[in-house]
């Protein structure tokens, strides 16, 4: 799904308007990098993207790979998730180069992505693609973006084989889990829940919660792209063990709570 290299003409095509906006965008970026207030630059509108350029942009799904995407900047969660009501363009920066489209669905579930930074009418969101931690900016003043508050988060402590759900920062439950082997470790980082799947083929778990992260050691797995998921397991052999292929195995009791979490909920894996 790497198509980011196929459209070097973007910059040239968006000539005059981009030029006019470049100064403001640069300033906005500078301010953003310092973590300061950026209201003055809030009015920066995205450069128009032609239908032809849109066609070239890869879809940001768990099957996709995007190159040149900004990495997750880290920092505190904004507690906000957004849902595109139509395919939205994802930019490398505020008014930066477009590099992907964010579709309205992920594996049949509505797309909800966590907001990790905000700058005026732009939001930086985490993406479900490879590489792990890929993010991008979308223009949020668009009426095609639905926004909601998410007070939940999940913490995964691999060393202690523990998963925790928090609400407003307060722990509301912890459970013992299983994680990936040393050969196929559960990747570390700030992932999020991309979909809620009532699995129709694999029978090890009634519900599977695929995460935005992918295995570093499995380029593909089964017929899938190596997506790391949270799910249960038919027996207790996983509890407190590192014996999965990278997924996070949880007890049914834990899964029963995890499936209630909104899509886009952050899963911090340490």
């Amino acid at each position, binding site marked *: *799904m*790497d*198509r980011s290299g196929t*459209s070097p003409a973007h910059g040239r095509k968006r000539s005059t308007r981009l030029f006019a906006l470049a100064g403001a965008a640069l300033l906005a970026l500078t301010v953003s990098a310092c973590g300061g*207030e950026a*209201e003055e630059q809030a009015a920066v509108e995205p450069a128009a993207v*032609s*239908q*032809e*350029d*849109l*066609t070239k942009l*890869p879809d940001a*799904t*768990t*099957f996709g790979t995007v190159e040149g995407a900004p990495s997750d900047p880290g920092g505190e969660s904004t507690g*906000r998730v*957004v*849902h595109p009501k139509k395919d939205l363009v994802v930019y490398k920066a505020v008014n930066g180069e477009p590099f992907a489209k964010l579709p309205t*669905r992920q594996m*049949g*579930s*509505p797309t909800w992505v966590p907001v990790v930074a*905000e700058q*005026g*009418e*732009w*939001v930086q969101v985490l993406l479900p693609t490879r590489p792990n931690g890929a993010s991008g900016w979308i223009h*949020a003043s668009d*009426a095609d*973006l*639905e*926004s*909601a*508050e*998410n007070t939940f988060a999940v913490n995964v402590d691999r060393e202690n084989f523990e998963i925790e759900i928090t609400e407003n920062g307060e722990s509301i439950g912890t459970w013992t889990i299983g994680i990936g082997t040393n050969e*196929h470790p559960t990747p570390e980082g700030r992932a999020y829940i991309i*979909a*809620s*799947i009532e*699995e*129709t*083929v694999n029978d090890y778990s009634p519900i599977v919660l*695929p995460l935005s992260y992918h*295995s570093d050691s*499995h380029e593909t*797995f*089964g*017929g*899938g792209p*190596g*997506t790391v*998921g949270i*799910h249960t397991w038919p027996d207790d052999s996983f509890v407190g063990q590192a014996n*999965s*292929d990278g997924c996070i195995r949880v007890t049914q009791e834990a899964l029963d709570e995890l499936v209630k*979490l*909104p*899509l*886009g909920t952050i899963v911090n894996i340490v």
Partner: protein
Amino acid sequence: MSKKRLAMAGVGALSAVLTAGVLIAPAASATGGENSAFAIAADGLLKVAKTPFVDDTNGASEESVAHLDVPENLLDVRALNARAGDGYAKASIADVRVDISALPDLGLNLAKPLVAAEAIEASCDNGVASSSVAAASVAGIALDVTAPANTAVEVPGLASVTLNKQVTNEDGSTTVTALSVEVNNLQTLDLASATCSKAGDDDGEEPTTPPTDDNGDDGDNGGDHGDDNGSDDGGSGSQSGHAPTPTPVKAHLDVTG
């Protein structure tokens, strides 16, 4: 490069493709779901099974193939993707180069590739179809990025080239194929095809909006969202209710166990 050599390559290409296992005809597709998609298919002197092919027999499904090529430059395509689910389907493909005119039995004598494109995609959503192509050409003739349904493209020497081909199927579903080529009744080539019907429940909009419990009135119920970084008019996004509890959706995805 002689035509004879290319003709030999055509045969070799087919066997190579089959042994590679990438293009094994998807047996499960025979029954098919109402919604389906594939990125490429060819029949005739060059045979390529629908690749990747997905349908919604097992719920939402998606597949990708990074790169598909046939030796001797007969075919070289990348980033093939297909996905389908209740009421939707989409197929896309990138860096397309199809040069099967080099097969002498086709009776083609083209100076340019039969098809070249940077990207091609077809999408079908709740029965509404669309498609687009980027930097695309057929036998060197540039194609419009978007075209009305069933736009015929005149290419001397080719039997039929249809852009944004749309068909209503017997079951009421709609199939859109971004680019469909037929050569002298000897070869067909379909690039980016999506078939969908109207969503089984409701109107195709998944249960995205209804927040869980406490804000039946749309969103701005005071509370604690006013602190979202103070950006000028709170104009980012629309409203800020609580994020909804997801409804599990029937689907199949092989995660890393």
